[in-house]
C-alpha cells in the first residue's frame, strides 16, 4: 500500500526524531510500532498521515492509494471529542466536514456506534461517558468515513487494565472483520503481541526500526490465554532486550 524509503525527520531544534526508516505497509495489515517514549513513534504517525513531512527519504503510495480527505482515520491517546457535541454528532464530524448532511448519514452513524458497543448512547455528551466509552466514540469517529488507513497513537494507554482488554478485543474483532489497514503505536509489549500482525520495534534517538517480528497468532477469541501468546510475548521481550540500548 505504501513504502517508506530512508525516511528521516529532524526538527528545527536539532532533535533527530527519525532516521533511515525503510519499511512498507501492506493493505490489510495490523502493524504495531513498539518502542519507548520519545523514539519518534508519534512523529512517524504524523508523517504517515500527511500532517508532517519527512525532510529526507520518501513516502511512496501505490497507485490509487494516495489518501485524500477522510481517507485517514486518526485516534489519539486522549479521545479529543468535541465536548459540546453528542456522541452521534462527534461521529458525524468527518462526514460533516466532507459536506454530508446529518439525515443522510444517520444510518451509518448508528451502525458505527453500534459496532463499538455504543447503541443507546447516541445522544450522550462526552462528559457523561466513561474514559473507555469516550475512546470508543473516538474510534467510531475514525472509522465512520471508511478510511483506507487507520492510525492509532497509544489509544488505550490512559485506560485501566479491564477497559483496555475489552477495547483491545473489540478493536481486533473489528479489524478481523473489515481488514482495515492499521498502524498502531504502543509502548506495551503485551498490547503489541496481542494485536499485531507485524511488530516494528523502534529504538530511540534517532528513531530507527531495529527489528521486525511477524506474528501468526491464532485468530481465536481466547488468544490472551493461548500458550502461543505467551511465547510471542517472550519473543518480543527478548528482541527488545537485544536491540535496546541501556538507559
Amino acid at each position: 500500500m505504501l513504502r517508506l524509503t530512508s525516511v528521516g525527520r529532524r526538527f528545527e531544534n536539532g532533535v533527530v526524531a527519525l532516521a533511515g526508516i525503510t519499511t512498507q505497509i501492506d493493505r490489510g495489515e495490523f502493524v504495531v510500532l513498539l518502542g519507548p517514549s520519545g523514539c519518534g513513534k508519534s512523529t512517524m504517525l504524523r508523517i504517515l498521515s500527511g500532517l508532517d513531512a519527512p525532510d529526507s527519504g520518501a513516502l511512496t503510495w501505490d497507485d490509487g492509494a494516495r489518501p485524500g480527505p477522510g481517507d485517514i482515520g486518526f485516534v489519539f491517546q486522549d479521545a479529543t471529542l468535541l465536548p459540546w457535541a453528542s456522541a452521534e454528532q462527534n461521529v458525524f464530524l468527518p462526514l460533516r466536514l466532507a459536506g454530508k448532511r446529518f439525515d443522510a448519514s444517520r444510518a451509518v452513524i448508528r451502525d458505527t456506534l453500534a459496532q463499538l458497543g455504543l447503541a443507546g448512547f447516541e445522544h450522550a455528551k462526552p462528559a457523561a461517558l466513561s474514559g473507555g466509552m469516550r475512546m470508543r466514540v473516538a474510534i467510531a469517529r475514525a472509522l465512520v468515513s471508511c478510511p483506507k488507513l487507520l492510525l492509532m497513537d497509544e489509544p488505550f494507554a490512559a485506560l485501566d487494565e479491564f477497559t483496555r482488554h475489552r477495547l483491545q478485543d473489540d478493536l481486533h474483532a473489528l479489524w478481523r472483520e473489515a481488514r482495515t489497514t492499521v498502524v498502531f503505536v504502543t509502548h506495551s509489549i503485551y498490547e503489541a503481541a496481542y494485536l499485531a500482525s507485524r511488530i516494528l520495534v523502534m529504538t530511540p534517538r534517532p528513531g530507527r526500526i531495529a527489528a521486525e517480528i511477524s506474528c501468526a497468532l491464532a485468530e481465536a477469541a481466547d488468544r490472551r490465554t493461548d500458550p502461543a501468546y505467551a511465547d510471542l510475548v517472550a519473543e518480543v521481550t527478548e528482541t527488545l532486550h537485544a536491540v535496546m540500548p541501556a538507559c
Partner: protein
Amino acid sequence: MLTMERTAPVAFGVLALIIWQGAVSLMQVPAYVLPSPIAILAAFWSDHDSLLLSLLSTLAVTAAALIAAASLGMVLALAMAVSRLARAAIQPWAVVLQVTPVVAIAPLIIIWVDQQFAALVVCATIVAFFPVLSNTAAGLAATPPELADLFRLNGATRCQTLFLLRLPAALPYFLAGLRIAGTLALVGAVVAEFVASSGGFAAGLAGRILEAGYRLEIPRMFAALTLLAIAGIVIYAALGSFERVILRRFGAGS
C-alpha cells in the same frame, strides 16, 4: 459546614453594620462625617424616586456598554484570529485604549459625541471591551491542536474550522471575559457620568453623589454609593450564573 460558609458573608455584614451603628451613636459622630446605617436607610427612603431613577439611568448606560463591548470584543478577536495582518494592526491600539485612563479621554468623547447617552456608552465600552477581546482572542488561539489536526485530515475549510471548532472552543473564555466586562462597564459608566456631570448632564447615580456632596447631604451620598455597590454585585453574580447555565447546556461544564 457548607451552609455556614454560605451565611458567613451575610453574618459578617450584619455584624459590621451593628458595630457601625453602635459606634456612630456612642461616639456621636456627626452625620456629615459618617452617617449611621439607619440614617442612610432613612435618606434613601425619603428620596427613593430620584435615586432609583438615577440608578436606572446608570444601569441603562452599563447594559448598552456591555452589549457594545461584547460585540466589539468578539468581532475584533475574530478578525485577529482570522488574519495575522488584522492582529498586528489591532493589538497595539487595543492596548493603548486599555492603558489610557478613561477619565482622561471622557471629556473629549463627550465633546465629540453629541448625544449624552451615547457619549457615556462609548466611554464605558472603552473600559469594558478589553477583557472580552483578550479572553476571546486567547480562547480562539487555544484550540486543542489534536482537534485542529483532525479537522485538517478531513479536509476542513477555514470557515468550517472556525465555526465548528475554534468559536465553540472559545465560548468559555468569552463568557469569563464577559463577567469581568460587566463590572467594568458599570465602573466606566459611573466615571463617565462624573465627567459629564460637570458639563450639566446629571441623570445617573454619579450626578446624585456629586449633588449630595455639594449640599453636604452625606447620608444621601452613602445611599447612592450603596445602590452602586449592590448594582455591581448583582451584575457580577448575574453574569456568573449566566456563564454557568450556558456552559452546562453547552456540555462543556465540569
